[in-house]
């Protein structure tokens, strides 16, 4: 069924492409929102990613599963976006980091709610947010994260750890 779907997409069948979109959009949107740190940017990225997929489907040769191919395309796009923005925002973000003050969202006895964690992840500074999302949410290993982000494996680890501790501070107030 997927083979037929891909062929139809490659032939420019918009309905087939819509089926593809319906199947994968949540996954891609979720990844993009988390990597970018906001739902609005996630939405814009989602558009760009699928448009890119539409254009590049012609070169999809079935080496990997379609979902994997799409995910990779999405991930690369998100990383490009984050990197280009990071260059601009670096200075300001670091200054802000020190200033923010917050109180815990949940008392110690209660487990962390998913929504609270999502919001806290959005507040992570760039650099450690992507590492955290890729490693602890998406499940990539440190070596893979390092490859994807273009950093050393040790840096991936320290960024992930830094993210966890920041999240802990956001959520538990310590």
């Amino acid at each position: 069924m997927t083979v037929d779907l891909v062929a139809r997409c490659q032939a420019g069948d918009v309905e087939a492409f819509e089926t593809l979109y319906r199947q994968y959009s949540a996954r891609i949107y979720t990844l993009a929102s988390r990597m970018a740190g906001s739902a609005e940017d996630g939405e814009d990225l989602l558009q760009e990613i699928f448009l890119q997929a539409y254009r590049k489907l012609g070169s999809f040769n079935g080496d990997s599963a379609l979902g994997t191919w799409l995910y990779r395309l999405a991930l690369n796009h998100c990383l490009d976006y984050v990197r280009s923005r990071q260059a601009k925002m670096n200075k300001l973000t670091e200054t802000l980091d020190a200033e923010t003050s917050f109180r815990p969202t949940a008392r110690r006895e209660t487990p962390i709610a998913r929504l609270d964690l999502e919001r806290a992840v959005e507040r992570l500074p760039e650099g450690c947010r992507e590492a955290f999302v890729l490693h602890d949410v998406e499940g990539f290993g440190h070596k893979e994260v390092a490859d994807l982000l273009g950093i050393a494996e040790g840096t991936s680890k320290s960024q992930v750890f830094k993210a966890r501790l920041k999240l802990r501070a956001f959520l538990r107030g310590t």
Partner: protein
Amino acid sequence: MRLTAPFVIAGLAMVAWPALAQDNDHRIVLRDLVRTLRSGAYQGRNTGPEQTERFSRKLKIGRDGRFSLANIAGDIVITGGPGDEISIEAVKRTRGDKSELARVQITVDEHPGRVDVRTEGEQNRTDRNRRMDHVSVDYTVTVPASVVVDVRSVSGSVKVTGVHGALRAETVSGNVTTADTPRLETARTVSGDVSITGAAADGDLTAASVSGNVTAKGLKARGLDLGSVSGDIIVSDVTCERLGAKSVSGNVEYAGAIVKTGRYEINSHSGTVRLLLASPAGFELNANSFSGSIRSELPLTIGGDAARRDGNTSRGRRDAANSHSMRATFGDGSATLVVRTFSGDIIIAKR
């Protein structure tokens, strides 16, 4: 603001009217035809009695069939019913010369499982001033209820009832009205109202106008996306898990359900946003306005998670509830309400 355009965009080709015929003879003929039509167009328009011509066609189509109708000027009524036949009745009308009617054609393309109907006429091409009300075609169509329908018009209203297959209904200047269309996906117009009742059981629905109102009533849908620029958005007796309702200068009123873990986002620049809630599920409210006021009749716990996060700093307390900003929780806070205006008021009331 006037759209002045002294801009040159690199790489943007200014489109010249494409040559229709490579052959010189044909080009000359076409040019003359254009001249004739243009001059003819100024005579007898809208002054004579109405001339009409009827068109009638029945076609068989499977229950999974697809039907599309593209009209230019004229009203469209599509009704879903039993059976496996599409029945098309059309009336061409003009107040000009009766010969005008022949220039407009109703084309029916039949394929296995698919029927495409189009109104075509030379006025499409030559009449650059778009005097589309010159000849109009009104359609009355019945289709088997389960057929997928795609109906578009330019100047004229679209009304669809009882079509249970996937449905798109669009026009440019005219109203769009749908009823009992559980798989309505899109209903759009530019200058006209959109009115939807009894639609979209599991799916997502987009309804939009630019200058007209969007009214959604008696629906159950998974996601609703309703928008207008200067018109109002009015939602009543509706259950949905996700809502995006937005206007710029119009009001937005939501008198629907709030379901557990639902997400409702409402936005207007200068219009009033009114939420009329009757025993809603618990929600977390995040309401913000630049200069509009915010008030609630429902018993809300000011603060809640969001405020606790930004804490007991003076800013946190100030933000949690001041006249232009409110973060509050109702009940178990499971749903999310995000309401934003610039100068419009935000009112949360009991229904």
